[in-house]
C-alpha cells in the first residue's frame, strides 16, 4: 500500500451471488499483506434474493469504522448492474467501478437493462463485464464473479502475488480442479482491465 489513506471497497450484489465471498477474499488478501482491515456486511434476509452489500476498509493505520463514508470509497465491485448503481453514492470522484452487466431480474420494477447500461457507461471509471457470457464460456458458473475480482485486483492496494495464495486457500477443500478454474477466471478478468 502506497500512502496511509484508508482504502474503501464496496461489494454489491443480490442474495446468493457470492458478494460476501468476494468481500472475504479481499479482506483475507489485505490481511495477509499485513494491512489493517475491517469489513461489514448487510444481508438481512438475503437467502430470498434481496440486496446484499459489504464494505471493506483497508489501511496502514488502525481502522475503526466498519462502513465507508458516502463520497469517499475508492472502488466498487458490482455483481449486478442495478446494484452497482445503487451503491455508487459511496464512491469518491476518481473511484473505479468494476461491474457485471448481467442483470438479475427478481423485482417488479426492474428497468430496461439497456437504460441501466447506458447510465453506467456515462459514469467515469466504469468497467462493465458480461459475467453471464464469461461464465458460459468458461463453463464455470462462478467464473464471471471471480473475473470481476480479478479485474478489480488491478485497483486494490495489495501486491499482485497474494491472490494465488488467497484463492488456493479458500478453495482448497474443493480440490485442485476448482482452484485451477478460479485462478483462470481471476486472470481472465485481470486481463480484461489491463487491455
Amino acid at each position, binding site marked *: 500500500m502506497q500512502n496511509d489513506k*484508508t482504502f474503501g471497497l464496496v461489494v454489491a450484489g443480490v442474495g446468493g451471488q457470492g458478494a460476501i465471498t468476494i468481500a472475504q477474499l479481499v479482506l483475507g488478501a489485505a490481511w495477509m499483506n499485513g494491512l489493517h482491515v475491517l469489513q*461489514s*456486511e448487510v444481508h438481512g434476509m438475503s*437467502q430470498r434474493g434481496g440486496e446484499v452489500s459489504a464494505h471493506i476498509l483497508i489501511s496502514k493505520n488502525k481502522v475503526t469504522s466498519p462502513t465507508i463514508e458516502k463520497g*469517499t470509497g475508492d472502488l466498487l465491485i458490482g455483481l449486478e448492474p442495478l446494484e452497482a448503481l445503487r451503491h*455508487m453514492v459511496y464512491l469518491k*470522484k476518481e473511484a473505479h467501478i468494476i461491474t457485471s452487466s448481467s442483470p438479475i431480474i427478481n423485482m417488479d420494477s426492474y428497468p430496461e437493462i439497456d437504460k441501466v447500461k447506458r447510465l453506467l457507461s456515462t459514469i467515469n471509471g466504469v468497467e462493465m463485464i458480461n459475467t453471464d457470457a464469461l461464465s458460459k464460456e468458461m463453463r464455470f458458473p462462478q467464473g464471471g464473479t471471480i473475473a470481476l475480482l480479478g479485474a478489480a485486483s488491478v485497483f486494490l492496494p495489495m501486491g499482485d502475488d497474494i491472490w494465488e495464495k488467497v484463492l488456493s486457500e479458500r478453495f482448497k477443500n474443493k480440490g485442485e480442479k476448482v482452484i485451477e478454474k478460479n485462478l483462470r477466471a481471476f486472470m481472465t478478468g485481470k486481463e480484461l482491465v489491463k487491455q
Partner: protein
Amino acid sequence: MKKSKLLMGDEALAFAACDAGLKAFYGYPGTPSTEIFESGEKYIEQLNDGRVAEWAANEKVAYEFALGTSYAGYRTVVTMKHVGLNVALDAFVNSAITGVQGGLVVAVADDPSMHSSQNEQDTRILADFAHIPLLEPSTPQEVYDFTLQAFDLSEKLKLPVVIRLVTRLAHSRGEVYTQEKSLSPTSIGIPGEEEKNNWVLIPSIARGRYRELREKLPAIIETASHYNTKIIDGKSKTGVLMAGMGRAYFEQYVSDNKIDPKKYNLLSIGAYPVDIKLLKKFVASCDVIYVFEEDYPYLEDMIIPYCDGKCTVHGRRDGTLNIDGELNVAAVRAVLENKKIEGKVDDDLFAKISDLIGIRPPKLCEGCGHSDAYEAITTALKNIGVEDARIFGDIGCYTLGVQPPHNAINTCVEMGASLPMAFGAAMAGMSPSVGVIGDSTFLHSGMPTLLSAAKSNLNLNLIIMDNAIVGMTGQQIPVAADIAPTLAKAAGFAEDQVHVFIPLPKKTKDNIEKLEKIFKENKPSLIVFKRKCIQAMRRKLYTKMEKAAV
C-alpha cells in the same frame, strides 16, 4: 505469542467465551446475534472438551438455562437480539437480585436502523433498569477483550454482565488477537451454605437481597469506571462524549482527516452504569458537547440536566443528529464541520440513479411452501364471502406474506403475537378469526394460546406454517418437531379439529376446499401446513436431523 484471526464481532464474543473457560452457550436465534451461538457451537466441536451449546425454545428459557449452569458453578453465555431481552426480562431483572455463581455473560445485539427488527430499543436502558453492568465494545478486538474480562467481573460482582453489540459490530469482521489457549471449563462449586438462601426470592429474603444490590452499586460503578476515560485533558472546551460505535466512527473521522484530537475534550464510555461525578466533571470542563452514541440519547439525557445553561449539548435531542437510525462517519462529520464531501454522484446523477433503481425487497424463496399455503388461505376466505379478510401474522420468513403477490397477513407485532391476537379478535366477534405462525415461533410463545383455544367455542383458526426449521435466521434446528397436533389433542381439541395439509401447488385446490369448510365451523381448529424449507434441504439439514434422532 498471541494468535491473530479475522473474526466477526459475534465470533469474537464466542471465541473469547470459550477461551475464558465457558461451559455452555444458550440462546434463541435472532439477527444479528445468531452467529455468536453458531460460531461458539463450531468452536466447541473443535475444542472437544466437554462444552455444550443448546438453543432454547425462547429467550427466557435460554436465560434460565444459563442461570442454572451458573448455579452449578460454571461460566456460561446466553445470546439473543435486543427484543429477545424483553422476553427474558423477568429472569434478567431477578437474576440481579439472586446474583450469580459461575460467570454469566448476557450477549445482546441491538439493531439501530432496524436492519432486521421491529424496533431499535437500547439494551443499555434495560441493564440500567435491572442494575446489571453492561460493557460496550467498539471493535471486534474489544469484543474479544471485553468478553474475557466480563467473566471475571461477573464472578467478582456476583452479577450477570451484559455485552452490548450493535449490528455493525456483530457483523463486522476484523483482526482479533486471541489468547493462545482456551481454559477448560471448571466449576467454582455450587453456592455455599451462607449463599444458599440468596437464590430463594421469597419477600423476606428478596428485601434483603435487593438492598444488598443497591448497596453494591458503588462497587459496580467503580468497576465500570475502568472503561470510562477522559482521553485528552487538553485545554479545549469543545467536548465529545462517545460510546461504542459512536467512538469507532469518531476515531475514524479524526484519523482519516488528520485532525488533531487535542482539538477536542474527549470522554469515552465503554461500560455502564456511568459515574455521575465523572459526567458532571466533564460537563463542567466544556462549553459545548457533541454526543455520539448508538440508539437512544441515553448518555445525552444523563448530562443535559447538569449543563444548566453553561454548556450546550448537541446530539439526538436538539436535532443535530437524527433521533433514530445508526451513526456513521458521515454523521460525525456533518456535526463537526460544514464541509460537504463531493463524491462521484452529484445531484444530477443521483436523480438519474434514483429514477432507475427501485427497491429489491427480500422475497420468499422460489417454490417455498409458505406461498402455496397463503394462496390456499386467502382464496378460501374469499370463496366463503369474507370481504377484506384480516389475518394475524407473526415473525419468520412467512412475514413476507404481507407483500404482493400474497397480500396475506395484516399484523406482525412480536414473537408469538399472532395466535393470541386471533383469539382476542374472535372473542370480540371476528369470525372466522385466523392466526398464522411458524413452527419455531409456535414453540417460542404461541403454544399457550392452544390451551385457551381448546376450551372455547370460537371460530378460531390457528395455522402453523411448519417446516421444522428456524428459516429466517439461517435455518437453525428447532427444539422440537411435529408435536403441535398431539399437544392440541392433549389440550382438548377433538380429532376433527386438527388438520395437517401439504402446501404444494398440486394440492392447493384440495386445500382450499377443506379450508372453506373449516372456516365456516364455529369451533377452534388447528391447521398445520407441513412442508420442508428449500434452503434447509439444500444444506441437507433434515438428513442431519434424522441421523441425530437415530
